[in-house]
């Protein structure tokens, strides 16, 4: 009965315990050297041998029960302390993050990459070429001999005499590709890059601009193949609902030549200011590679045929993103360009 009292005393004492220190005190009171439970062992010697065993077992039980109670209490208090600590550490998760900046691409490069990625999936290689170019490659090989009236329209920056110039189009890269192909291998390439013409810079003109031109030379290639290819590009850039049309046109290096229109994505073809009420916007020009150009570049027009097409990167971006001033692309106002830092749904 003594023993039962001890346990209930212990329980009572633990009721009042608040801190770890209190736990130690209670522990000393019962399990210390002179503690209530420890001192029970000294009573053993007064007992008979047969009683000793059962009494000893009782004390041991009592001791382990007390230890458990104390441990529980200790854990309890520890977790209380931790909880308090965590409570104190709680933050305002709405405060601003440390911003990890990501850079935006140039709008033009983004546009070019968009087209490049699509065309690479169709087997076109993406090739670079020199911007200071030979007149021969920029004009002559492309069926634009000296004195050709179409040269006036591409009023050119000459660099050295009439031999070297800042390329007025990216087409010389196509010439280079064909020359490298030596009339033997089929060609599928695009050559996006900078071009230069003598225009005063304003909202619709720029002395420097970017073209995305493509060339495919193979066997039995037709104008219908160009139409299908253009359809794929137009739908990729402007959505599945985009309609296309071809109109007769003229370029010295293609015959037949076409202008390629897309249905105005703004008014859906109904007619608006953007499409000048026609429902159509011209985005590209192209045609079947002129037999003279094939010949000049070492491809026998009796065996080979091909198509070429060209987009203005600025124009594509202007239409796609609703930009109305060419100078935007070269001013690089970061407040404007940062919009393009994110991924776009395709």
């Amino acid at each position: 009965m003594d023993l039962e009292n001890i346990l209930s005393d212990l329980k009572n004492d633990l009721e009042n315990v608040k801190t770890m220190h209190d736990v130690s005190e209670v522990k000393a009171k019962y399990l210390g050297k002179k503690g209530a439970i420890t001192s029970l062992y000294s009573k053993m010697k007064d007992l008979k041998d047969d009683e000793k065993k059962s009494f000893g077992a009782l004390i041991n039980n009592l001791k382990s029960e007390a230890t458990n109670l104390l441990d529980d209490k200790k854990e309890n208090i520890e977790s209380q302390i931790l909880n308090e600590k965590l409570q104190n550490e709680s933050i305002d998760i709405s405060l601003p993050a440390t911003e990890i900046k990501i850079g935006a691409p140039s709008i033009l490069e983004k546009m070019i990459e968009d087209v490049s990625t699509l065309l690479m999936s169709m087997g076109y290689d993406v090739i670079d070429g020199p911007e200071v170019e030979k007149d021969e490659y920029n004009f002559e090989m492309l069926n634009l001999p000296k004195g050709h009236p179409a040269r006036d329209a591409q009023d050119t920056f000459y660099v050295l005499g009439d031999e070297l110039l800042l390329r007025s189009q990216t087409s010389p890269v196509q010439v280079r590709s064909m020359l490298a192909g030596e009339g033997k291998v089929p060609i599928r390439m695009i050559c996006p890059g900078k071009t230069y013409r003598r225009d005063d810079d304003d909202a619709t003109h720029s002395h420097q601009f970017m073209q995305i031109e493509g060339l495919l030379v193979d066997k039995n290639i037709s104008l219908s193949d160009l139409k299908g290819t253009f359809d794929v590009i137009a739908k990729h850039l402007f959505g599945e609902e985009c309609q296309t049309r071809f109109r007769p046109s003229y370029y010295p290096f293609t015959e037949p030549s076409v202008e390629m229109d897309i249905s105005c994505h703004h008014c859906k073809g109904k007619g608006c200011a953007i499409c000048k009420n026609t429902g159509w916007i011209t985005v590209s020009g192209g045609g079947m590679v002129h037999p003279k150009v094939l010949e000049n570049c070492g491809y026998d027009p009796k065996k080979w045929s091909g198509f070429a097409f060209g987009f203005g990167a600025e124009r594509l971006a202007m239409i796609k993103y609703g930009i109305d001033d060419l100078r935007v692309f070269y001013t690089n106002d970061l407040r404007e360009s940062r919009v393009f830092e994110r991924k776009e749904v395709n």
Partner: protein
Amino acid sequence: MIDLEWVKDYIDISDQDLKELAVKITKAGINIEKVITNHIDNLVIGEVLKCDMHPDSDHLHVCLVDTGEKVLQIVCGAPNVKEGLKVIVALPGAILPGNFEIKKSKIRGVESNGMLCALFELGLEEKNDETYNKGIYEVDSSAKVGIDAMRYLGLDDTLYELDVHKHRNNDCYYHIGFAYEIGAILNRKVTLPYDKTNPIKDDIKKHFSLKVDTDKCPYYLAKMVTNVKVGESPEFIKRRLTAYGMRSINNVVDISNYVMLEYGQPLHFFDKDTLGDNILVRNAINGEEIITLDGQKRVLNSDDIVITDGVKPVCIAGVMGGENTEVTDKTQNILIESAIFDGVSIRNTSNRLDLKSEASIRYGKGLNFEYTEKAIERACHLLEKYAGATVLSGTLKHDKIDKTPKIVKFKSSEINTLLGITISDDDVKVELDRLGFPFEYADGEFKATIPFRRLDIDPYVNDIAEEVGRLYGYHNLVSTLPSVPIKKGDYAPDVKYRKIISKRLRTLGLNEVKTYTLVSPKMASKFKYEDKKQVVLPKPMSIDKSVIRTSLISSLLKVYEYNRDHKVESVNIYEIAKTYDASYTEESKVCMLMSGNYLSNEWLGVNVKVDFYLIKGIVQNILDYLGFKNRYSFEKVEVADLHPGICAGVMLDKKMIGVIGKVHPLITKDDVYVAELSLEALMNKVKAIKFKAALKFPLVVKDIAFVIDKDVTSDKLVDVIKKAGGKLLMDVKLFDVYTGEKISKDKKSLAYSLTFASYDRTLNEDEVMTVFNKIINEVTHKLGAELRDK
């Protein structure tokens, strides 16, 4: 500009809705920009039944006018109005030029229900004293009352404003050429205008000699007419020229213009009596002078072609005539020139002299020699008919023109392959007929001859395919994809490198920009860290775009300044672009500019400012990513316009591949850092990646600090440490740099923590100390450094 009323002379289009026709023509590739019609509704022929003076005016009349449906009372102020006169009546609702709407009104108290019109009021004549005094237009008495007035007078006109692609610039800009185009579209025949004359026996060859002494004039025809009576042009010529936008001068001058607009062939009329009896066409002599029709003195050079009287110039060929032989009111005898000159030469001359005319533009685009001949005959016919001229027999002729017909042999299958369509031989025959291309057909092969008027067509099947295609209609093409082998497309190696670096820099937070290749001499002269001469354009558009840049730093600095001025914080940008030096060698460069904060969170007090070491970190990130670890270093260099003390050359395999540094405070007061690397130099071979297991044995870390001369770089010190440390030295990390009171002024203290370990065993203290002491020894001896806190 094409006048459809005029075109009707050559092709029957009376059944056509001209707006719809314009759409058809545009679809076939001849772009009609605008359809202009001058038709005015509510304009009818009327007859003046009664004409009384206005009770309250001394010049107004009150008329009763039969307009067919009704008899209207109309007040009219014209002096020539009288009973019985047939007139043009503008009924209420008619809108006259100038947006002037006719309404019922009262004029000085008298009701007026319309207006009787003069031609100038309908925009059909110029308004001047003469036309004003003529009064209202007197319609022929045979005209039927009540019919549409403009239509009756043949004044109902539709004009097409063209915006034609360059290659069709020559044949679509004259009325006969355009008639052929309509003919192709509507499948109708073209009739050429009447050009017969009644020449007298007297032959021009008795009066004139012609010599052409230049190869820039392959074709020259001259005819002579006498007894010309200079006067007013016939109505139809005046009206057509006016509609076209040309002023009527007199019958002779007008005929020359009229024929040009018919056949596209410019003509020149000389006053025979001031010209003399010789024509010599030759290249001008440098410095030769002529006073042109506009009274200006023009100085010529040997690139120009001149018509001379054997000695002195009388005309700048194809550009403008001379004052000395001008046709005047008193002219009686005329020499007519119809010729072809070298187009490029004419373009150059007219550009140089800033003398562009209808004629010079046409010469510049090229002419059809068949029409050179037709035009001179037609002009003679018109002069005979409308200027009372007597035409002399014979034509002076210089003829070196290439008359080889352009012939194309092809099969319809070739056209089908090129266009991706299927049309039969019979279809092709129809198309060629429509185009007016004569052809032979045998055994499935066509042999078509291109008419000379189609200068744009070359003898290739592609050209025929284009003609067939545009009439077939490109909108009828189906979409197919090329049947070519499937393959993977790829970026060319240099493009791939550019893309990789570009993407990396964006990931590191830099924004890509795009700037101009052409810069001002001032921009070009800055940041010249290479020994490169620059290309200055021989003919720039303006001084600020006159030099091809060899570095992008100036351009990026400009972008920085723009953004700073627009309150953009932390401008961190890059560009990759090609540069060219004076030997036209290309070098692609990647340039970075950084400023402001790289990483920040103000309320947290986190603030990583851009400094030299940050941009150095960006550069290292690129170099490490490309696999150049341990192959690059930074060496102190001085570069103009960069801070002399904060500037380094970037070395790869001991070759300088770029620079990095702070922009000189004289250029900008802001803390702006730039780096530029050669992309070509970065396209360098790297070793394949190999796996390397982590160290399995304990590391021993020892710290050490050296006091050393300020101008010895840490890199140099680390080099010595590494060499002395050998294999067991795994890492050297700088953890403190000190300059200040505790050491002498020209010294600095650099503290490193050295990590020793081995891949195959645990190192003992003795081993480590041996190496450690060797390091101290080498550094102190080789670099004159001292151990700090010894």
